[in-house]
C-alpha cells in the first residue's frame, strides 16, 4: 500500500513539465539568436554598436537618427539595460567586457572600473563636441585627467512630497526626519545606500561620504528610528506609489518626480525640495569598455550625442541637466528654467551639493545598510 515514491510521482507529472521544457527550449533559442546576432555584427564589417545602459536613457529620436546617419541596421544596434551601478559592475566583473562598446556608470564608480581594467581611454581627437562640456564638470576627483569619461547628465537627491497631504514646509533633511513619524507607512525611499546615507549624515552636518565609525553610528541611530515608517525601498518606480498617494513623502531622485510635475493631474500637488542642509550631486558618464568590438563607432556615438542639437533632445526627453553649455541654446526655456532640472547657479555655488565618493565597500556602511534594509516597515 502506498509504496509509490516521490520519484515516481515526478515521473507521473511529466506532462506538467512540458511547459518548463518549452521554456528551456525557448530561452535556449533566444540565447542562440542573440549569439548569432552578435557574430553577425562583429564578424562582418557592417557598422554596429552595442550599448549597455540604464533603461530609457537615450532619446528614441536620437537613436533613430544615429542609426540613419551611420548606416547601422536595427539588428546591429543593441541597447541592453541594467538597473543599478552595482549590477553593471557585477556583470562586468562576471566577464561581460568585450561584449559591449559603451556603458554609462555614475561617475564615482569609474575609478574602481579603471582599476579593474574595464575601461578604455577615450580618444578625444575623435570627439570634437567634447569642447562644449562646461569646465566645472571636468577634472573632478573621479577622473582627474579626463581620460576615461565624457559627462552625460547630472542631478541631485532630495525630498519629494505630495503637498495636498504633506502640509509642513519641509526644507531640510532634519525637517524630513522630524515629520516622518506623522506620515508613517507612506514614505518611499530609493534603494541606493549612497543616497540614503546622505540624509542622516547631512542632517548632522557631516560629509555624505563619511566613513568615520562615530559619525556613522550617529547616522545609524537616525536611520533605525526612521526605518519603521518606510513603506518601500524602490529605485525604479518610486513615482508610482507617489501618484496614488500610497506614499506622500519620498527620499528620491528627480526623474520620476519631473514626470509627475509634467502631468497636470499631479503637477499642483507635487514638490521636490533640494535639502538646505546639503545633498548629493551625482553625474552619469559615457565610458567606452575595454575590448569594445566597435571602437570607432563608440567614439562616433559619443561625439554624436554631444552635438548641441542632439543633446538638447536628450534633455527634453530625459529631464536631466546636461553639462553641455552650447546645447542650452536649443533647449525649451521652460525646461531650462526649471530649478529641479537645472539647479540654479547660486545653489550650485553655495556648497550645498557634495559629490559622491566610492564608499560602497566600507564595512560599517554595509552593516548599517543591511540593518536598515531588514528593518523597514512595521
Amino acid at each position: 500500500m502506498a509504496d509509490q515514491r516521490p520519484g515516481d510521482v515526478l515521473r507521473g507529472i511529466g506532462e506538467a513539465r512540458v511547459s518548463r521544457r518549452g521554456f528551456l527550449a525557448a530561452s535556449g533559442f533566444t540565447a542562440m539568436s542573440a549569439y548569432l546576432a552578435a557574430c553577425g555584427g562583429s564578424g562582418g564589417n557592417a557598422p554596429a554598436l552595442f550599448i549597455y545602459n540604464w533603461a530609457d536613457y537615450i532619446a528614441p529620436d536620437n537613436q533613430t537618427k544615429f542609426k540613419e546617419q551611420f548606416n547601422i541596421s536595427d539588428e546591429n544596434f543593441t541597447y541592453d539595460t541594467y538597473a543599478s551601478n552595482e549590477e553593471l559592475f557585477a556583470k562586468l566583473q562576471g566577464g561581460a567586457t568585450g561584449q559591449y562598446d559603451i556603458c554609462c556608470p555614475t561617475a564615482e564608480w569609474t575609478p574602481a572600473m579603471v582599476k579593474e581594467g574595464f575601461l578604455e581611454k577615450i580618444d578625444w581627437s575623435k570627439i570634437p563636441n567634447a569642447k562644449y562640456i562646461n569646465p566645472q564638470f571636468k577634472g573632478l576627483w573621479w577622473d582627474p585627467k579626463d581620460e576615461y569619461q565624457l559627462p552625460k547628465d547630472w542631478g541631485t537627491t532630495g525630498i519629494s512630497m505630495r503637498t495636498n497631504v504633506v502640509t509642513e514646509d519641509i526644507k531640510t533633511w532634519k525637517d524630513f526626519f522630524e515629520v516622518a513619524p506623522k506620515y508613517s507607512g507612506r514614505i518611499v525611499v530609493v534603494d541606493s545606500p549612497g543616497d540614503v546615507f546622505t540624509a542622516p549624515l547631512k542632517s548632522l552636518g557631516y560629509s555624505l561620504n563619511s566613513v568615520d565609525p562615530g559619525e556613522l553610528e550617529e547616522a545609524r541611530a537616525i536611520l533605525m528610528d526612521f526605518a519603521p515608517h518606510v513603506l518601500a525601498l524602490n529605485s525604479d518606480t518610486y513615482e508610482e506609489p507617489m501618484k496614488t498617494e500610497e506614499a506622500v513623502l519620498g527620499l528620491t531622485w528627480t526623474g520620476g518626480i519631473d514626470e509627475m510635475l509634467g502631468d497636470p493631474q499631479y503637477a499642483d500637488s507635487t514638490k521636490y525640495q533640494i535639502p538646505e542642509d546639503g545633498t548629493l550631486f551625482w553625474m552619469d558618464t559615457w565610458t567606452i569598455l575595454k575590448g569594445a568590438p566597435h571602437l570607432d563607432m563608440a567614439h562616433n556615438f559619443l561625439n554624436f550625442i554631444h552635438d548641441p542639437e542632439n543633446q538638447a533632445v536628450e534633455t527634453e526627453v530625459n529631464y536631466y541637466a546636461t553639462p553641455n553649455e552650447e546645447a542650452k541654446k536649443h533647449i525649451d526655456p521652460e525646461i531650462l528654467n526649471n530649478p529641479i532640472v537645472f539647479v540654479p547657479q547660486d545653489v550650485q555655488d553655495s556648497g550645498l551639493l557634495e559629490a559622491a565618493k566610492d564608499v560602497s565597500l566600507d564595512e560599517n556602511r554595509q552593516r548599517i545598510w543591511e540593518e536598515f534594509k531588514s528593518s523597514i516597515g512595521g
Partner: protein
Amino acid sequence: MTAGTPAGTSKPPAPARDGPSRLATALLILPAGLWYLFLLVLPLAIVVLFSFGERGETGGYAGGFTFTNYDGAFRNASPFVTSLYLSVAGTLLCLLVGLPLAYFIATRAGKRKTLLIILLVIPFWTSFLIRTYSWLILLGRDGLAGWFVDVTGNDSFRILGTDFAVLLGLVYGYLPLMVFPLYVTLERMDRTLVEASKDLGAGRLATFRQITLPIALPGLITGSILVFIPMMGEYVIPQILGYGQTFTIGNALVLRFLEFRDWPAGSAQAVGLIFVMFVTISFYLWFTNRGRQVREQSVL
C-alpha cells in the same frame, strides 16, 4: 515501486548486455551526466570554495582561506528565519488549498477534468513577472486596498508591503506545483478501497485518514518539497509584493553579491541556505516516513 535494477547488487554481469547497447546507454546518460557535472556539481564546488576566500579590493573573490565569512553569514539570522517562516507557511497554505482542489479534480470533476487541468496550467503561459506585477495592481491603491480605503476612510490601510501580500503571491505562484503531484497520486487511487473502508464501518474522517491520506502521501511529500525549495530562495515576490519590507534570504544574497560585491560572504550565506534546507527537508522526510511506518504497524 523502484524502477530499474537496484544499483547495489553485484551479481555476475547480465549476459544480454552486448557492446552496442552499453555504448547506447552511455551516450544516453552522457548529456544528463555532463549537465549534472557542469551545471550543478562544479558551480556548487565553486560556491563552497569561494565561501572560504577573501573579498578583493574592488570586490569579487581574491583567494585566501578564512572562516570569517561563516561567522558573518550567521551573525544576522533574521533573513533565514523570515524565509523559513514564509516557506513553511506558504507550503502549508498551498497544501490547504491544493489538497481539496486536487481531490476534486481527480475524483469529482468527471468530464471537466481535462478542462480544469488546462485552466490550472494556462496562467503559466504568461511570464511570471507579469503575473506578479498584476497582483500589484489588483492589491494596490487602484484595486482592493483602494476600495478598503474608500470604504473605511483609513488612509494608511494597505495590503502591499505586508506578509499577507507576500504569502498570497507565493501561494498563487507555486500552487500548481503542489496540485499536480497530488492529482497524479489521487487519480490513481483505487476507489474500491474507499468503498471497502466504508463497508467496514469507517466514517468519512476515518476513511480519509486511513485510506486517502496514506495514498496521497507520496504526492504530498513531493508537492511540499517542490513548493518549499523555491520558496526558500524566493526573491522576486517579497521584493515586488512585499515592497522589500520582508527581508528574505534571497534579498540578503542579492545584497551580498550585487551591492556589497562580497562574493565570499555571499557564498558562505548560500552554503548556509543549502544547509538549512538540507536539515529542514531531511527532518521532514524522516518525520513523514516515521509517521507512515507507525501507521502501518498499527494497522497490522
